């Protein structure tokens, strides 16, 4: 135990004395949340609007005026047929199309339901959703100003999304971001710190000593577990304070699942370092093997549902996919372990598998 404490203390010194890396580790999560938060922001301003109005009348013109007066929308095209919209959407000329059904004004006046089809470009699902809200608000504003008629609902807006029909909402970038930050800290930094000792030759000295392989491993990775935990707190804190990201479920459960995910990442880092002998190779290995999949295949940026089926299968082996699902479930839906046990079980299984694999390859190196 004495020996293990010594190793832990040593590793902590390594981390604390490498000021620049430490600064990066501490500030990266915060900077990332803020960057992602603002770049995936739901700010809706200057939205390019197309109008399809087959039979212009007082009602449609009034609504069109309201759009232009809202300060949010700018009408860039007025088309007669909805078929014209395709090209406009594809060229990114318009972001939202508002389409009145023929005889809109007359139907409204006669108390029949008058339909408006609102189509929005949901390539960026968040902004897509937000634009829909604004369109609805403008229409409701007009409707509220009408004299009360016999029917309860008269204007019927119908929403449709282009390009990304499932509209996986990324308001939820925080879970994915946590996964990425943890991968960087736990997997990348662990792999680097172990291969550094191989490069400098100190690993040999440790291996010749009576230390057991597991003690060496625990001594190397435990401090990163600590840093990883602090980063989770930092990301959650900033997400909460700056972006008001909700926390509907149990924070304790989320932190426990986060710790589980850190373990997966640490095990991956050990595996990478056991199979490489230079920091450069370890860096590449960790980037390719952990960060890229985390970024691309976890559902963090690109919704899994809109991936090709083959790629969807690949996501099953990406630990971040499961963690992102868990974190979104807890933070946004407020669900508990009864609904998340399956994802949790997958992560537990992955941790065990990776730990066994990495302990094995670590041993091989000593022989």
């Amino acid at each position, binding site marked *: 135990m004495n020996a293990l404490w010594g190793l832990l203390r040593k590793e902590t010194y390594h981390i604390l004395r490498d000021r620049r890396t430490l600064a990066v580790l501490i500030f990266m999560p915060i900077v990332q949340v803020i960057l992602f938060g603002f770049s995936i922001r739901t700010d809706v301003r200057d939205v390019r609007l197309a109008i399809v109005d087959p039979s212009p009348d007082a009602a449609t013109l009034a609504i069109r005026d309201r759009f232009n007066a809202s300060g949010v929308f700018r009408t860039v095209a007025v088309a007669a047929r909805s078929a014209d919209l395709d090209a406009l959407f594809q060229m990114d000329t318009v972001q939202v199309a508002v389409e009145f059904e023929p005889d809109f004004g007359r139907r409204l006046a006669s108390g029949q339901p008058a339909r408006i089809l609102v189509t929005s470009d949901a390539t960026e699902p968040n902004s897509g959703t937000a634009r829909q809200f604004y369109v609805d608000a403008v229409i409701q504003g007009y409707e509220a100003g009408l004299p009360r008629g016999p029917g309860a609902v008269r204007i019927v807006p119908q929403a449709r999304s282009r390009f990304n029909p499932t509209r996986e909402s990324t308001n939820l970038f925080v879970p994915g971001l946590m996964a990425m930050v943890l991968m960087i800290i736990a997997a990348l930094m662990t792999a680097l710190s172990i291969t550094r000792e191989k490069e400098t*030759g100190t690993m040999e000295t440790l291996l010749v000593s009576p230390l057991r392989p597991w003690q060496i491993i625990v001594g190397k990775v435990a401090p990163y577990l600590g840093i990883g935990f602090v980063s989770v707190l930092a990301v959650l804190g900033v997400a909460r304070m700056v972006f008001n990201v909700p926390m509907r479920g149990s924070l304790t459960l989320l932190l426990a699942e986060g710790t589980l995910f850190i373990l997966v990442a640490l095990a991956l880092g050990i595996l990478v370092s056991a199979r490489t002998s230079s920091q450069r190779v370890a860096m590449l290995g960790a980037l390719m093997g952990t960060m890229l999949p985390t970024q691309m295949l976890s559902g963090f940026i690109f919704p899994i549902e809109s991936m090709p089926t083959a790629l969807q299968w690949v996501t099953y082996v990406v630990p971040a996919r499961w963690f992102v699902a868990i974190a979104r479930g807890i933070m946004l839906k407020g669900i508990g372990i009864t609904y998340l046990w399956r994802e949790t079980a997958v992560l537990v299984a992955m941790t065990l598998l990776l730990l066994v694999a990495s302990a094995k390859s670590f041993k091989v190196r000593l022989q």
Partner: protein
Amino acid sequence: MSPAPSGEAIRAHDLTRTFGEFMAVDHITFDVKPGEVFGFLGANGAGKTTAIRMLTGLLAPSGGEASVAGHDVATESEAIKQDIGYMSQRFSLYDDLTVRENIRLYGGIYDLTPSELRDRTRRILDRLGLARAERTLVRAIPLGWKQKLALSVALLHEPKVVFLDEPTSGVDPVTRRQFWELIYEAAHAGTTVLVTTHYMDEAEYCDRISIMVSGRIEAMGAPAELKKQAGVASIDELFVRLARPSAESTRGAA
């Protein structure tokens, strides 16, 4: 004290290691007596480091047998670890820890009691004249001191056998002299020393030496004896004669 069948500190018999087709260590046989300073000479790539790695348990032998401090390297590698010290070819201290922290780290690894650690730390710092530098990062002290400190740390737990793999490479002659004084002190205290070097003048400091060429031991004995047998004036000359057929860079840095 040790239950070795022969009472030797190190015994190697037909010890062999192959890497694929390449025979890095080719059936070497030698014994080292307790308290002896045994020099392992050879050109770069002659197999010295591979032999040491087998004796320290870092590498499994492909054939033959060996024991260190009475423990078999193949079957009792864990027991060996407590009894040996090792200073690798590459520097084995942590640059970003202070002198004192490095000593404390290894004290912890080898499970010294706090009072043992305190006494020995004091002794090392005094012996090396590093008392004022104990809170200095190792990165900042001169190479010669680092090497002497690394040796002292390898001896911290008073091992029965210490393996030094090219401990003096890149060190100036004065420091090398001081380094050898430390080696003698350890040997006097009963520690067996196996040291590799390619400085031929250092061979003269050893009780006995072996000269390795292409994985085989080509000559072994006390330096004076070897010179007499071969009729040469210096170990350097003997070495060049033995090594010439197969090695290009025989003269090392000497």
